[in-house]
């Protein structure tokens, strides 16, 4: 039987608004991980961020590029306590699509992330870094940068895929 190269690991579909979701006990079986999400932002700060392995230290950073339909811009943030996927506010009630690629997530180097986001207001992409040599075994996707005001809206869908290189 052929080895499965691209495999759905887990899916979460929200029945109600929630502050965050977590994928835990992620095996080190694959080479890369891809998180694809269709998120309906709700709450007063509908922006989203990731944490790995529960790390709340200042071990995250990113460089992004974004287009609004009238201009393009690029920003950078360092020494964050989360990997911020945004930089811009999402319109509530309208799905935002996220395509988050975690390269060599189980390897012994720092973890590089390439992420794209699309919604009705912006197209964005970012290069992120988690400065840890530990394998990623947990991914937390949170509204409002792990504060209390934002929500992942009911109907949001999150799917984790594993990609295996032979």
């Amino acid at each position, binding site marked *: 039987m*052929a*080895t*499965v*190269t*691209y*495999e*759905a690991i887990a*899916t979460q*579909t929200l029945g109600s608004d929630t502050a965050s979701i977590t994928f835990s006990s992620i095996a080190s079986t694959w*080479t*890369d991980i891809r998180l*694809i*999400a*269709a998120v309906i932002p709700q709450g007063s700060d509908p922006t989203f961020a990731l944490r790995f392995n529960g790390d709340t230290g200042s071990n995250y*950073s*990113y*460089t*992004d*590029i*974004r287009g609004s339909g009238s201009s*393009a*811009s*690029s*920003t*950078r943030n*360092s*020494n964050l306590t989360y990997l911020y996927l945004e930089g811009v506010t999402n319109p509530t009630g309208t799905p935002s*699509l996220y*395509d988050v*690629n975690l*390269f*060599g997530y189980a*390897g*012994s*180097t*720092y973890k*590089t*992330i*390439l992420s*794209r986001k699309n919604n009705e207001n912006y197209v964005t*992409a*970012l*290069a*992120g*870094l988690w*400065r840890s*040599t530990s394998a990623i075994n947990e991914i937390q996707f949170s509204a409002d940068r792990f504060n209390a005001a934002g929500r992942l809206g009911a109907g949001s*869908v999150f*799917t984790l*895929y594993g*990609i*295996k*290189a*032979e």
Partner: protein
Amino acid sequence: MIANQVAGLLAGGVPPVIPGDYESIQTVTVGSGGASYIEFSSIANTYKHLQIRAIGRSSESGSNNSGTSIQFNSDTSTNYSWHVMYGNGSSTGSVGFANTNIIGIGEGTGAGAGANTFGAFVIDILDYANTNKYKTVRTLNGWENNGTGTLLFVSGAWRNTNAVSSIKITTGGSGFVQYSKFALYGIK
């Protein structure tokens, strides 16, 4: 299912990925001795598209980043062209190159970057075996170094109607360092 529809959309308009339609073809993991280049050879023409997923770091000294390039079928002539759009944390820009002997596919980190940091690449070679067309390449690439970094989109063309049967990837300095990893996948 929404997740499959989303996966299909975000894969660039191709149908949703089904296990078995996305296959690992070849993988190169750079060992302690480094690698002056990465090469995939004897690529079968049985897939519809190719994708390379990679992390790369070069030995190029004095630089946080290192340009990385691709060539096909040992063609070193000026049969390539490419455009790039980038954001570096403070500004955005775009630049194009015609009649070149490589396609620049983005940047890995260099020896000046923090230890353990690598650039990441997703490289798509679309309709690679079609002998009625030139070959189109697109790349999503970025590197991040906690204070420096760049995000790049690249579009390139190889003006040759032959099926892609080999791929060579090069970078600065004396090449790729340990733990760089390039994985070639075929999409049916």
